[in-house]
């Protein structure tokens, strides 16, 4: 033993966990969120003038998080509405992600759908009955999203192009397409299309309820599609192993194209909800980065449509809470991003501790002590 202590064991070593109990995994995630919130508080004390001078108001800081989504009924509805749009895009991504087709182009697919449905509204609005207009807008949105997703899918199936880069580039094409249309459409040259008077989705209850219900139905429907239909099964097989799919005679190309069509059409639905349900207008920021946030929502939910309701809610809660902090404490626009970034860093980082166990060198040098 005396001899042993002369040699140095590694200070830290890692070992992979096998089969983590779900409860333990969730506890680790919860701890990560808590830790993230604490670090946010510290960052706030350092960066926000009003808190630096008066650290006692830190409680208010945390309260503001909740306030962002729940203080008034309007904020709560807004929370549910934003959650629904984000969830809708996340759901759209899910089939392709289950297939391990890393579609980073939801932003563009959705934006192009907004553009498509607003184009119909812009040119036909007022000239045809509203119900027909809404149907045409719907078709246009779905078609645009589907085409935008189909292009990279076909190239992947035909030439095995890298879908991640391809779909990413398509986002920029979509953005420029919107800019181009706005230059043509907006006569005063400001590239800012005022809210159109036609093409507004009917409302039930309040402005947002219909949208929320549609997306909720979609979540359940997609869950059934992925878990209980032949198509969903094929997606899972292709995602797990292309060779297995070939082995059992699944046409991989067909599944890729079909799934991306679905993905694009669902992005189209999201675009329709944004265009016809909310904005009646389009700008290059109509989707506002939600196409990228959706990737995280889907990933955090392990591509389970029902769990996505929770993860989309979490992300939306963070966003609104952080915006409320920026408002209440009158801090620069970048601060909410810092807050959201810190918390997401902890949430994503904790997956490492779910998958690996960390051992520290013990004093005795014999028995490894382990944490978490």
């Amino acid at each position: 033993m005396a001899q042993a202590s002369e040699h140095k064991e590694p200070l830290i070593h890692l070992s992979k966990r096998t089969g983590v109990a779900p409860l333990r995994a969730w506890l680790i995630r919860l701890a990560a969120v808590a830790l993230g919130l604490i670090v946010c508080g510290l960052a706030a004390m350092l960066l926000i003038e009003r808190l630096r001078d008066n650290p006692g108001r830190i409680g208010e800081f945390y309260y503001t998080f909740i306030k962002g989504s729940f203080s008034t009924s309007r904020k709560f509805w807004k929370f549910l509405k934003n959650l629904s749009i984000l969830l809708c895009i996340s759901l759209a991504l899910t089939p392709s992600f289950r297939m391990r087709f890393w579609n980073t182009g939801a932003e563009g697919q959705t934006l192009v759908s907004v553009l498509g449905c607003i184009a119909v509204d812009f040119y036909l609005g007022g000239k045809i009955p509203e119900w027909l207009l809404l149907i045409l807008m719907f078709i246009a949105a779905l078609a645009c999203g589907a085409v935008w997703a189909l292009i990279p899918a076909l190239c992947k199936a035909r030439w095995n192009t890298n879908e991640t880069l391809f779909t990413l580039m398509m986002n920029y094409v979509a953005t420029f397409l919107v800019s181009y249309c706005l230059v043509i459409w907006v006569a005063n040259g400001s590239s800012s299309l005022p809210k159109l008077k036609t093409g507004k989705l009917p409302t039930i209850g309040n402005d947002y309820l219909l949208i929320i219900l549609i997306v909720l139905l979609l979540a359940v429907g997609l869950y059934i599609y992925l878990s209980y239909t032949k198509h969903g099964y094929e997606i899972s097989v292709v995602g797990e192993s292309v060779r297995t799919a070939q082995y059992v005679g699944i046409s991989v190309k067909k599944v890729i194209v079909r799934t991306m069509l679905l993905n694009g059409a669902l992005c189209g639905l999201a675009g329709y909800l944004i265009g016809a349900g909310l904005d009646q207008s389009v700008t290059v920021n109509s989707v506002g980065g939600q196409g990228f946030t959706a990737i995280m929502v889907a990933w955090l939910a392990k591509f389970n449509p029902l769990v996505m309701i929770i993860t989309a809610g979490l992300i939306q809660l963070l966003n609104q809470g952080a915006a409320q902090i920026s408002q209440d404490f009158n801090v620069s626009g970048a601060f909410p991003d810092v807050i959201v970034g810190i918390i997401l860093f902890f949430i994503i980082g904790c997956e490492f501790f779910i998958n690996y166990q960390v051992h520290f060198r013990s004093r005795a040098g014999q028995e490894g002590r382990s944490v978490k």
Partner: protein
Amino acid sequence: MEKQLALQLRGITKRFGRVVANNHVDLDVNRGEILAILGENGCGKTTLMNMIAGIYFPDEGHIYVDGQEVVIRSPKDAFDHRIGMIHQHFKLVDLFTAAENIVLGVHEEGRYNLKEVNQRVTEIAGKYGFHIDPRKKIYDMSVSEKQTVEIIKVLYRGADILILDEPTAVLTPQEIDKLFDVLRRMRADGKSIIIITHKLHEVLDVSDRVAILRRGEHIATVNTAETNESQLTEMMVGEKVSLDIERNDPVDAAPRLEVMHLNLHNAEGLHVLRDVTFTANGGEILGIAGIAGSGQRELLEAIAGLQPQMEGDVIFHNPKKDKPVTFFHKSMKRVRELGAQGMFHDQNMKPVSFDGMSTAEIRKWVESGNVLFKEDEIIDLRDKTPLEIRQLGVRLSFVPEDRLGMGLVGSMGITDNMMLRSYRKGPAGFLDRKKPRELAEEIIRELKVNTPGVNSPVRRLSGGNVQKVLVGREIAFTPKVLMAAYPVRGLDINSSYTIYHLLNKQKESGVAVIFVGEDLDVLLALSDRILVMNSGAVTGIVDARHATKEEIGLLMTKTDRARKEEA
């Protein structure tokens, strides 16, 4: 000669999560001996050796080299204590020469002098009887040559304790003999050699002592001279096991699958199948032998329709003459097609015509069992996809080498894996999990699959259980041809015998079984005929009841030499 301890392990324990890979293992290795570590797959042999070689760090326990306690944190530490390991998967740079690979990562004083290195490599090779050209690039080398480079790499670094992980798995009998000669020479030179294996006869052939591991525990170390196969097996498995493989004579062997002039170039343009021609008979096990990578995988995949760019014909004989047509393996569309071609007659030998009949009428007639095949069906599988092959009613089952990467979906449970072949059945777009679940339960029961449940991911199952699930599924579809690639690789002895038994049962029921194996003893004991392949070509088909291992070993390397002579 006085025995001198080179390496001692005391109380070595290693856990992976809740799995204990090694549990308080004690082991002694002497100078100048060959110690075999024997155990079934998953018993912790490789883990234990990886701790000596610095790949893993033990959770508990002590390691002593020459009586001094040492701590080995990295492969470099291991080399500092003159320990070197030759892994099962070689770690060589393809574009470098043998000598360049050997000096790679060696920190020596002075300038890098390739000439000197070449000379030293040649010296080492000469001393132990290796044949190696230090200037040859790795990509030009055979598997056996690459292994030689790995061994010299370790010797070059001055290792006195050499660990070889399953070194014979990739070698022909002749190459194994050569390797063992080298090992004996090293022993004579005072080196300690640890060889990991699960092949009993090799253990008896080369080792001085055998250490047996079972489920992570050290069971015993015995002198090789004082033991025998059945004793070792018993210690390894923990119970008495019969090592005899049953083999019945084929009954009514009739050609079932004719492979003719099969040629295939892979994606890199290499000619991986060269004019392969053979016939597999129903009621017979056709073994396929060859060094790993001789085209066995490509051959089976070509037959199964997974190599669309292949040339040549694969003819399937379906013994259907005077048997009723069913919708079990034929679609309505296909039945109509065959009917139009005049392939059916009724019980009175009158030709059947479906002209002017509705789908319901045809269905009724066929299901009455009165529509019979006029002839045996002869179907060319050339240019057919796996789906088309199934739709033609060809019952071809295939147990691929890559079980979780091809045969099964690792993240899915047994039920969902049962559906892989059959999920398309059923009218609507929805899956029917009822029948697959019943099948899953049946397989679990019949083949004694050890699993937490039908929905537990098959990835979590042990190798043997995974294979039972895969073979069970392929057999459940009552194949006419069953192809199995390395079906017992990585399996424990009991599971292996379950698989042999299943293959024999298929043979008895008239199935043409094609069995690709690596253990020549098993191939010789199980097969009726053995087809030997080398470099994508058939070098011979022998009668398994009369052939010897040496004969097959020569066939396994035949073309290589012939090619060299031509050049």
